[in-house]
């Protein structure tokens, strides 16, 4: 099969890959780079479990073909820690009890990170609105919203 050469910067590391023309970014990350923190849940962009940051913007990696993002910087949940130090959102999600089954967690944290990167002091309603892009079936969202709020106040 014909493959396409793609260069990406994934979690601050340059990678060059030969991918299938129809390969999604989610498949590339999970299958080629073993970055399985992004999850496949609905495969049509409605749930946000596969969210990664593409040049800082949260995107559904199940809807993006890898060749489309040639040259982009990708941040996955695995790239969020600074050395051994957790990102404040990761810390807050743990402390506030915002994690249950964990399948939505990486998408939630990355969505929240992008929000706080573009708006350091969001109102609660901004947080609720932004986090409504992702589905969680376990928590009822209360502790997720609290974790993002808490982080924004630090």
């Amino acid at each position, binding site marked *: 099969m014909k493959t396409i050469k793609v260069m990406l910067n994934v979690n601050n590391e340059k990678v060059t890959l030969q991918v299938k023309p129809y390969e999604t970014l989610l498949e590339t990350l999970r299958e080629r780079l073993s*970055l399985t923190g992004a999850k*496949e*849940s609905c495969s049509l962009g409605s749930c946000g479990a596969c969210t990664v940051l593409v040049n800082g913007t949260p995107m559904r990696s199940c809807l993006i073909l890898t060749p489309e993002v040639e040259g982009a910087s990708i941040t996955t949940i695995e790239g969020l820690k600074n050395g051994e130090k957790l990102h404040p959102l990761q810390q807050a999600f743990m402390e506030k009890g915002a*994690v249950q*089954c964990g*399948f939505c967690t990486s998408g939630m944290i990355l969505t929240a990170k992008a929000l706080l990167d573009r708006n350091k002091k969001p109102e609660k309603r901004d947080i609720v609105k932004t986090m*409504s892009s992702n589905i969680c079936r376990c928590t*009822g969202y*209360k*502790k997720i919203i609290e974790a993002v709020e808490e982080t924004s106040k630090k």
Partner: protein
Amino acid sequence: MDENLKIVGKRVIRSDSYAKVTGGALYTADLKLPGMLYAKVLRSPYPHAKILNIDVSKALKVPGVKAAISGFDAYGVKWGVFRYTQDHAMLPTDKVRYIGEDVAAVAAVDEESAIEALSLIKVEYEPLEAVFDPVEAMKDTAPQIHEQYKNNINIHIHIEVGDVDKAMAKAYIVREDTFKAKGEAYAMMEPYAVVASYANGYLDLWMPNAGPHVRAKALSNLLKLPLNRVRVRHINSGGAFGGRSEVAPGDLVASLLSIKSGRPVKLVLTREENAMCSRQVHDIIATVKTGMKKDGTIVAKEYKTIYDGGAYSSTGPIATSIPYYVYEECYRLPNVRYDGYRVFTNKGIRGMYGCHGRAFLAGNEAQMDLMAKELGLDPVEVRLKNGLTAGELTATKSKIISCGLKDTIIQAAEKSDFKKKWKKHTRNKGIGMGCVAIMCGFPMGFRSGSSCYVKINDDGQVTLITGMVDNGQGNESLAVQVASEVLGIPMDDINLVNADTEVTNLDPGSYSQAAAYVGANAVKAACEDARKKIIAIASKKLGVPEEEIDLKDRVAYSVKTPDKRMPISWITREAFFKGEPIVGTGSFFPDIDLEREWVSKPEGQMAGTYSFGTSVAEIEIDEETGKIKVPKFIAAHDCGRPINPMAVEGQMEGSVGQAGIATIFEGNMWYKGFLLNPDLLEYKVPLACDMPDIETIIVSSNDPKGPFGAKEGGLTIRMNAYSAIACAFTNATGMLFEELPLTPDNVLKLLEKNKGGKR
């Protein structure tokens, strides 16, 4: 010891959360084994058809394909939870009974080759007449889905207590209403996946499951392998909610493909397959007749409840019973007749659900409010009057051990200013209350109990080994927290080895609310056994009596003279020197009536204990659009003693979404056996913006036998949140719901009916 708890009762960070926030937690689809193949399943396009022939030979010729199977490669065993419900071959050879049923499968070196091979499998069918409505299915003229079940009646549960007819005749008011509810989708975030790896006569399996031991037993039967050759291993699970309790067709498919190919096989379902071909929730039609005295006392209940059971038995007798039992465990029912029918239809396979039975439970509660109104009584008082208390027996003679029902009702009512708001409702604003009780563990014969082992390693760190399984609710952290309390060792020092059937001993699993009460009790017992051994050595070494010694912060010390102390790691080494390493074992078996049987003897002690809960919802109805909003929700739950209050709150809040907000959103839609909304665009799951302002209240009743007084945490809200919404609708409109969910179209229909009527 209980009054000086060090860590139990504290809001601790869950032990599993670090891996989950860093992306390191592995789920089944994340696994990659050397030589692993990818599987795809060919599914039935017919709701009901005879299988004339299945030919997989051409599929095997596709390059990269290593195995292709159908039911003819299986061992002719049918699965059923009970001896009398063994009707599910998982891969049928006689006929298909629902659209999407597993018919054949292939395993190939990549997904593309597997998909290509599927298209070359030839199946000859002879389509049969199908039936999709359970009421139609019960008629003599309906097609028979299974030969052995006449009129497609899979299960009939009949419960008769007291003299219902006499009591109804004497009641001051009697009311009979029928309520319907669509089955919901589990919509767990992780679609079902399985990895099976067969080598040298041994089969290893990874899949999201809510009971590794029951899963292994089912597969050992289906594959005719001894139990110790079928190893269900630990893996994270992306939600279950009742939908991962039973063996899945995919478990058998992946196992057969691995046995055939001699290589590991991974099968991952799509979201749509997960909705159509893994478990579904029962649609229910409940007719509720209630007789009440003038003072609001319930004198009699008569029920006819029909459960749309889909194509196979599944947990049939249990699913047909539970909505009734959680109601009789909550309220005093002196005379009751319950007829529950589970009926086969040509729809997907069904299972239990955390929110199972909403038509029945919300129907009972909303009807009670309408009767209270007619009698000029307050719903809070009616609930308090009829609510069971500790020491009482349920209608089917199960004793209530500890009971915080009254406190949950009073606290939820006070916090919400219920009585005032209920009286002052307007026609588009209402408030409602729902109550329920939950059994902490179903009776499951010898599988009702749990066992645990613990070993203290030579550096003083601990390995805890239990069959308990976590589907996201926090059972793993719960076990670690309990062990930490008993052993005086930080949670971080404890390595949990769990949910692996070759390493751990029997545990009932997490689907019958047994984890906190049964599993954690076994953990506590095992750790107490180890603690005794630690203290015996410390007593000798420190020269102080055993009863004077406590364990805290990795140290054994004298409570009277705290400077007499030594690290637990030294004690452990001392034990190794003696050739008696510190190992603790413990088990817990709940006090239940093992003679009890769901169909033949529905009487006797059902569970070791019960939890209780009350939900209060406030709603607003937009009369133009029919849309309901839920601005405020208060949930009060008696969980005995919360081991980790933060985790219990999380369960309660999640329940407000999955059961409460689902009341206005969620329902599976069907057209002739086709599921119309199998994905997450068409099936609406509540989002953050749909959630009310939630307040949770934890009521402690301190159960005498629960570990540190604990009972299950959160499920009561999952089984009464819909009642609160339904009752709030009744409060506002003066009407009962007819069918859930209360989507705008449903609401407009009801409001239209009500026009001109009194409100």
